[in-house]
């Protein structure tokens, strides 16, 4: 196995593009090393992207936050301004594994691993996050919800690397929240999860995004659930409609950790709770 430590994203993309065997990007390694250990992959090339300066920081500009692809979960939690603007997203990233995992795991690794239960993904999609994708010849910007196409599958072409995640400028009176259900409070995989991001105008929901995780092959944007709460102050009727829309959007697996019926029911409940938290964070009173 060749181990490379390029210092630019383009160099990383070129190395990956040229490799004829099994090539993998190494960010925090909390998915990749487990897969290597279990014999699920035997790479001929591992490209460690942690030496690329363009991927290492969280920066804020008028356009919003930019989070480098190698920023670990613990560094996101330590960033006060990010947590103030996007508390739901930071909470979601912070739910990934233990403190040991937080010291290594990245949101981009979480995304590109392609697990339907990946915790940071619904929150990124609800936030309207975009990925800066770098190939050997060109760069493009893609909405995060267009990256994962199925369990373990992404739309990235051979050699393409995500350099950073960008979040849109935060409007006043906005809030987000992410909740997941797990049998154990720490160190467990989501059976169902829900992310809500919204902006208010005089206490009324002006824009909203509702995203569910672990209830389908990829995270799902539930446009009908967002529509149910837009124009309302989250009255009971609106929340009922949101709950029903979420249940209708579920297409979950059936396993020992949660039956289809259970996951479908809990999805609506979590979305409702997340909507209330996001609403209050945006300054609304229930």
């Amino acid at each position, binding site marked *: *196995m*060749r*181990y490379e430590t390029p210092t630019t994203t383009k160099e990383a993309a070129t190395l990956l593009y040229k490799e004829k065997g099994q090539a993998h990007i*190494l960010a*925090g*390694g*909390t998915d990749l*090393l*487990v897969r*290597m*250990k*279990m014999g699920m992959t035997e*790479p001929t090339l*591992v490209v*460690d992207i*942690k030496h690329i300066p363009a991927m290492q920081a969280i920066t804020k500009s008028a356009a919003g936050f930019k989070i480098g692809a190698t920023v*670990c979960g*613990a560094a996101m939690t330590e960033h006060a301004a990010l947590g103030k603007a996007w508390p739901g997203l930071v909470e979601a990233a912070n739910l990934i*594994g*233990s*403190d*040991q*995992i*937080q*010291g*290594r795991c990245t949101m981009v690794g979480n995304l590109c691993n392609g697990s339907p239960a990946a915790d940071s993904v619904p929150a990124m999609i609800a936030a309207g996050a975009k990925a800066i994708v770098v190939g050997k010849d060109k760069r493009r910007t893609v909405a995060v919800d267009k990256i994962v196409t199925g369990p373990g599958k992404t739309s990235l072409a051979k050699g393409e690397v995500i350099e950073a995640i960008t979040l849109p400028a935060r409007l006043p009176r906005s809030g987000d929240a992410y909740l997941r259900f797990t049998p154990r*409070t*720490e*160190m467990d995989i989501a059976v169902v999860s829900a992310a809500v991001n919204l902006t208010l105008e005089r206490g009324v929901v002006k824009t909203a995004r509702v995203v569910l995780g672990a209830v389908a092959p990829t995270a799902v944007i539930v446009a009908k659930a967002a529509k149910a709460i837009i124009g309302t102050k989250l009255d009971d009727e609106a929340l009922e409609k949101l709950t029903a829309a979420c249940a209708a959007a579920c297409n979950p697996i059936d396993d020992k950790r949660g039956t289809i019926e259970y996951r479908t029911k809990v999805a609506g409940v979590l979305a409702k709770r997340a909507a209330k938290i996001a609403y209050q964070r945006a300054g609304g009173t229930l």
Partner: protein
Amino acid sequence: MTGVLVSTTINGDAVQFACPTDETLLDSLRNRVGLTGAKEGCGTGDCGACSITLDGRLVCACLVLGVEANGREIGTVEGLVEDGKLHPLQEKFIEHAALQCGICTPGFLVAAKTLLEKNPKPSEEQIRYALAGNLCRCTGYDKIVRAVQAAAKEMRKK
């Protein structure tokens, strides 16, 4: 020597070792550097027996490649002793009988030390959350939590 040469700092000392590129840092530490404090419980990030710090951050050594250590600073349980004197956490683990078989202990010590450096006065809940990545099959955790609380108190006196 086979493999890639890695120059790193371990518990403040410059160390060099050579390892294959696909070897975990846990294996490098144990089999090449001779630091056997970090243990392999699971090898997949679940048990925390292999906890070390990498540039000050708590990580599982079983999920780091040995070659990744090049140019970086590692802290292991062996670094807790200073001038032949046990760290307050070690003292309190013994006093409170917070270990039985001891396999999990180095991991708990490293994780607890990282916690107390960030938060010198953690609540019981904060301790339990911070140590959620460390599994113990023997003690039932309660004595570990008490020992960390006692060590925190001791360390605040200094």
